[in-house]
């Protein structure tokens, strides 16, 4: 049996944990630099507040309805996420954190559960009691069915936060109430193509011939059909696979026109990408480096350059060196830059690197290990490549930030006696 546990509108609910005054109010959370709405609590959803719209477009609507607006409090969310995952991990023999608010469970050697429905509620209650976060729990014979059950547990009527797909009747009931794109792995493009065939929902997809689906749409859809029928195709190891691409990108708090500041920002992104890449044991072959003005500006400017390393690397000095090398191609005087970023797009496994007979490796594992350890112990940014020096202009704008109640002594909540 597989399980998927995830939090209901995690960011918005996290805001309510240490602020009882907004527990019954509509709450939305904004993305980096207070740009867009990225989380909407259930009360705000009932008011019809949309997700992923720029904040300035709905500002007056939110004010009119008394919606509480918050900047993303990553310090708080990271801590609450860790607590939530610690609780969930107690309830299975194998646990994989899939995203900040989502984790898969695998019950391989678990014979002690005879009522999955009850067990789901045990997990929900424990998470609620210990963290004050509401979660949905779904169980199924495959990862795709567990994901579908999780969807049902939160979004379909008749479920109270837990759903189990363990026979044909429960499969049919849940899948026939799910649109194609709500099935795990079916994106909007694929959904459109499938609907041309006359398919309407997940149950229709489950009843297709896997072979025919493979012929028309490829092996991924074939596997999805099999998974929907309770035949495991996705291996447990695959969900935890290394990322193929790693990006660090952000918009500036204030516009940047100065070349040095842009270079510093790009270099800083490169070092973040380097740290992430080293954490998963990969090397970068190709680096994408880009910068742009705002799409809302009159003369929109965007430039993106690819730099290819002769030998794949995780060495921060090489990554930052690449920025300097291509910088003149990206920077243009007079442009007020709004956004920039760096991404490693062709990643290789550092364990199985193909060595070059003639050129020496450019990597320096002992130096990188030391660098990472210093930053781990004394906090990110304790050591930096000199060019990546921080500039307050591109610090994040977080005008509606709530207290960092669990990570900062000066921001713990006040309790009236």
């Amino acid at each position, binding site marked *: 049996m597989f399980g998927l546990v995830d939090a209901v509108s995690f960011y918005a609910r996290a805001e309510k944990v240490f602020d009882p005054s907004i527990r019954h109010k509509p709450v939305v959370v904004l993305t980096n630099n207070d740009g867009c709405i990225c989380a909407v609590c259930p009360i705000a959803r009932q008011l019809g507040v949309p997700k992923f719209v720029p904040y300035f477009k709905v500002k007056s609507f939110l004010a009119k309805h008394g919606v509480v607006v918050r900047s993303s409090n990553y310090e708080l969310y990271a801590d609450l996420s860790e607590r939530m995952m610690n609780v969930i991990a107690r309830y299975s023999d194998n646990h994989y954190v899939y995203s900040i608010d989502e984790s898969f469970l695998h019950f391989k050697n678990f014979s002690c559960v005879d009522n999955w429905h009850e067990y789901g509620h045990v997990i929900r209650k424990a998470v609620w*009691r*210990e*963290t004050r976060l509401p979660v949905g729990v779904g169980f199924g014979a495959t990862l795709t069915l567990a994901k579908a059950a999780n969807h049902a547990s939160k979004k379909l009527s008749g479920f109270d936060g837990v759903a189990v797909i363990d026979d044909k009747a429960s499969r049919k009931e849940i899948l026939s109430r799910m649109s194609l794109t709500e099935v795990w792995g079916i994106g909007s493009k694929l959904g459109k193509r499938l609907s041309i065939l006359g398919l309407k929902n997940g149950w229709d997809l489950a009843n297709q011939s896997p072979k025919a689906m493979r012929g028309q749409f490829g092996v991924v859809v074939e596997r999805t059909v099999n998974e929907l029928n309770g035949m495991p195709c996705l291996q447990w190891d695959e969900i935890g696979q290394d990322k193929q691409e790693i990006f660090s990108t952000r918009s500036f708090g204030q516009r940047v026109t100065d070349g040095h500041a842009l270079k510093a920002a790009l270099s800083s992104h490169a070092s973040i990408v380097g740290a992430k890449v080293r954490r998963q044991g990969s090397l970068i072959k190709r680096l994408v480096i880009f910068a742009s003005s705002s799409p809302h500006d009159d003369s929109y400017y965007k430039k993106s350059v690819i730099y290819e390393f002769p030998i794949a690397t995780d060495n921060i000095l090489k990554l930052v060196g690449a920025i300097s090398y291509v910088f003149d191609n990206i920077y243009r005087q007079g442009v007020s830059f709004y956004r920039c970023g760096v991404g490693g797009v062709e990643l290789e496994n550092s364990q199985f690197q193909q060595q070059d007979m003639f050129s020496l490796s450019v990597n320096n594992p002992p130096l990188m290990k030391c660098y990472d350890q210093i930053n781990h112990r004394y906090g990110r940014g304790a050591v930096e490549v000199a060019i990546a020096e921080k500039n307050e202009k591109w610090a994040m704008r977080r005008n509606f930030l709530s207290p960092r*109640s669990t990570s900062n002594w000066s921001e713990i*909540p006040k*309790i009236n006696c």
Partner: protein
Amino acid sequence: MKVIPVYIEAGISGFESPAAEYRELNLSLEELLLQHPNATFFGLANGRSMEGRGIFNGDVLVVDRVEHISNGSVIVANFNGCFVCKIIDTDNALLLSASDEHKPIKISESDDFQIEGVVNVSFRLHKKLPVLLSCLG
């Protein structure tokens, strides 16, 4: 809590300290004071109604969400949108203070009330730290 242990060795240089092999993990305040670290949060006491139970203005409250609640427990609750620290009278649905100057508060149906956790530990800083005082501002 991040503590960087620095070991001071008294031996003559070149010889290992004879105490080295007796070294263990340092005493941890967290281990002593936090029963359920995962389900615990800290808050700052504001007010004088709990002085009879040894909780003074400016003390740090350790709030445990897992701890069992019984009649007479010192609890932290959300009472109408505010965190309050009181003694819970579960038999009569009352919030009691540990001071004669404060009357019991009856919890009625119209109140927004949830218990957030139990306070089994609180601690006092005899020299007030500026970092904590800013919470009361």
